[in-house]
């Protein structure tokens, strides 16, 4: 009946976005505690359990990419300016677009729910094998190494008060019915904050509707969605109201995961020098044109449980897929790219460097005054603003003076346990953590964030600690990345509820052995 072109007749056009197996959640990476047969690194890439936990989508291709390098000496302390920073971004760009040829582990699933796992560009050569899902499998590599692998369903290892985070950034779709088309109604133009703003009726906790933003959404009232107040909200006892609850919004949830325990000597020929394993994950979906091709298994793969692969195989295969998502650092989306699909660049996110500076300054105007109001010192220069401010920047050069300390300060660790060998390892700084967007696992540490990411790390709260002034002291000790997880800080602070922002541990115990992530919830 339509005598005209009508592509939307067959196209989903609006709020109809389902969970996708392409949604990557987290990448964890840390040195294995088991060093019996030499050093090993554990890497776990988690993603949406679609179609269900333990069942993977045959249209997907997952990549875990990795490159081992020596630990880099930090720039001199007196060199902390915008020019140095931009030079650093350029150097990263050269590295990731130029010399770097990362190794790669690639996983696809066949119709019978068997996983083909391919290893490309490792020193021992390319090879491939096929394994069962939901089982721990020991893979023998052609050069004699042993790799543990698990592909299948597990408990979601992320524990976090996600609604609290969304409240802190005034993210409307968590609280309101926001059509997919209304891109301007996502992060509303209200100051970001850790403490509720007086009169911020759109996002403040409502005791009459306690589940708003958790299980309940309301209609978004007509704009303007701004805030006209000038102070943080206080209760009758003079306490601020925390935007966080400390509750685990991820409790009871499952993921699908690719988990590997790999000898460092398999990743690099020089494990003594290349002490940092940079890793990141990617999800790719088969292109439609290739879905209808009948692609027989490679004859070599049918004859052998594992097989050597030609170098050309990888590119030909990848041409049939489309990159959807990348994952390296936790909260890189929030810190860097505001979850825009066009910015899914993985490690190659160097061009976002100037954007990172502007975005961090924008966040700083929200979180910095909140931290000051609690009587803590902030790394962000907010000119002693008594309350959070909504400010955006169009130029990195304008934002930089505000955020200089936040970017360059070393993030103190709570004690020395992370540096298990007591080596001269520099403390890491935010600019080098987020660009490139990789999980950089330091093999001489425990791999706790930001020297990797361990399952038990409360990374959401550690992310917030970037805005603390690491030169300041609390109870006679320098601020550190775990400070906001310290209950005594909240007990002493004029705030309700008296809780760290996010839960301190996962809803179920992690395993002390491979695959480390707990069994899935049934």
């Amino acid at each position, binding site marked *: *009946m*339509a*005598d*005209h*072109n*009508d*592509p*939307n*007749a*067959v*196209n*989903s*056009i*609006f*709020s*109809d976005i389902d969970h*996708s197996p392409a949604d990557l959640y987290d990448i964890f990476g840390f040195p294995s505690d088991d060093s019996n047969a030499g050093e090993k690194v554990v890497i776990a890439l988690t993603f949406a359990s679609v179609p269900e936990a333990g069942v993977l989508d045959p*249209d997907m291709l997952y990549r875990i990419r990795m490159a081992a390098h020596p630990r880099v000496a930090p720039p001199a302390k007196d060199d902390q300016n915008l020019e140095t920073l931009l030079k650093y971004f350029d150097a990263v760009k050269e590295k990731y677009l130029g010399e770097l040829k990362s190794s790669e582990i690639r996983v696809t699933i066949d119709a019978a729910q068997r996983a083909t796992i391919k290893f490309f560009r490792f020193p021992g050569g390319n090879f491939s094998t096929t394994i069962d899902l939901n089982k721990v499998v020991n893979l023998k590599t052609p050069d004699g190494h042993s790799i543990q692998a698990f592909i299948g369903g597990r408990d979601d290892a992320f524990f976090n008060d996600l609604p609290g985070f969304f409240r802190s950034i005034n993210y409307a779709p968590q609280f309101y*019915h926001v*059509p*997919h*088309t*209304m891109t*301007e109604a996502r992060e509303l133009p209200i100051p970001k904050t850790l403490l509720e703003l007086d009169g911020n009726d759109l996002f403040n906790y409502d005791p009459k509707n306690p589940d708003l933003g958790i299980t309940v*959404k309301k*209609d978004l009232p007509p704009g303007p969605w701004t805030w006209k107040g000038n102070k943080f909200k206080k209760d009758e006892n003079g306490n601020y109201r925390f935007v966080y609850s400390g509750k685990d919004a991820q409790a009871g949830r499952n993921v699908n995961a690719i988990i590997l325990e790999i000898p460092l000597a398999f990743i690099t020929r020089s494990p003594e020098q290349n002490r940092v394993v940079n890793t990141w994950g990617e999800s790719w*979906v*088969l*292109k*439609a*044109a*290739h*879905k*209808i091709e009948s692609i027989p298994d490679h004859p070599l793969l049918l004859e052998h449980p594992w097989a050597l692969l030609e170098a050309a195989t990888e590119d030909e295969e990848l041409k049939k897929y*489309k990159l*959807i998502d990348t994952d390296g650092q936790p909260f890189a989306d929030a810190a860097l790219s505001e979850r825009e699909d066009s910015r899914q660049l993985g490690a190659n996110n160097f061009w976002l460097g100037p954007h990172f500076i502007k975005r961090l300054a924008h966040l700083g105007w929200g979180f910095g005054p909140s931290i000051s109001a609690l009587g803590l010192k902030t790394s962000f220069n907010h000119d002693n603003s008594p309350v959070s401010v909504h400010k955006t920047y169009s130029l990195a050069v304008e934002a930089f003076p505000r955020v200089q300390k936040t970017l360059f300060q070393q993030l103190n660790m709570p004690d020395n346990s992370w540096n298990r060998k007591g080596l001269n390892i520099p403390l890491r700084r935010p600019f080098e953590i987020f660009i490139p967007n990789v999980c950089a696992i330091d093999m001489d540490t425990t791999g706790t964030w930001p020297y990797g990411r361990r399952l038990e790390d409360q990374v959401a709260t550690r992310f917030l600690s970037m805005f603390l002034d690491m030169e300041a002291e609390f109870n006679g000790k320098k601020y550190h990345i775990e400070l906001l997880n310290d209950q005594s800080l909240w007990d002493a602070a004029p705030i309700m509820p008296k809780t760290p922002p996010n839960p301190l541990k996962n809803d179920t115990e992690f395993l002390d052995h491979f695959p480390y992530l707990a069994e899935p919830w049934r």
Partner: protein
Amino acid sequence: MYKPRDCELELQQIDKHLSQLEDSVRGKHVDPEKATKFVFRLYHRASITGSFAEFERAESVIDSLIATFGPKEDLCLLKANLDFKFHRVANAKRDLAMAPALPGRSEGKALLADILFQEGCYKEAAKAYEDLIAENRTWDNLARLAYFRSKMGDVPSAEQLYLEAEDELTAKEMRSYAWLQLQRGVLDLTHGRYEDAWAHYTRADQAYSGFWQVEEHMAELLAAQGEFDQAIAFYERVLARVPRPDFQQTLGELYAFMGEAAKAEPWFDKALQGYLESVNAGHVHYYHHLTDFYTDVRPDAAEAVKWASKDIELRNNFGTQSGLAFALYSAGDVSGAIHFIDQALSSGVQESGLFALAARIYRAAGRIPEGEKFLSKAAAINPHYENFHVHR
């Protein structure tokens, strides 16, 4: 063992979602997000089945949700798409305007570009499509421009754009991929490349099996190739699932083309009955088919001019202009026919059917050399333009 086809599987999935969401539109506390998903699923289902009754149900739920929640963007966009689909162009514009920000959204702009094309604003439509792609290089925007360029005779560019659109689609969008294959097949068919068209239709069937639109396209191609028995079998299968009057007319025309008037007539009766029921119910989307019916199938010049005039009031474009030109020609008003065929030709559209009609009208006006020129143009585009074909 019976293996459900892709189309059936998708319908099963939609039905599952619908049953999960059905409660969301009942009772006192309607959840707007779930209700919007529900009505989208209704629309989605109707798009697959091609059932007008299902579209009507979707429309009724959209209207009731707009009455309840006000002109939400998602709902207005859906309503505008539905109105556009059924040739209610003015309504589609009004729907978009109900949500003030919607015409500025990417989805709203895409529909407005389609409306420009339907209203015969070709330069503006072309620019709007190009701007859309610069802003948002999605498969459907690429397909929009491809269609525009194909109509304007820039076949290499259209093919390239369709290829790019294909490359944007993933295994999760196989129905869209099949739809693109059909467009590419039509492009080949209208240029006389039957083998290439068949390859695209076969690919569409592989991509998304059990889709009646694929069978309907295959039926036309088989008929064009003179494989009448097979074509009839395909049309009958399509009609068993989608008993639309335009398909009933097509099958009748095929019988007539084969010289089997007795078999054709019952299908024409059914088609006419369907058309008239539709217009009597106030619908406008069959005006174009009624024009065609009364010029080609059961000539009645006055009726043809009546429906063509109504159609052009809704959408003044090369299609409705050529429809009115043909109707006027049938009524013996050759100068009127020349006026409207010239308007259609001035669009820049390069179609063998349009040129063949222009040749007929110009020759009737005694302008033989111009008529011959248009006939040559028609044959240059599609050497088989006189074979059986469907007016899309």
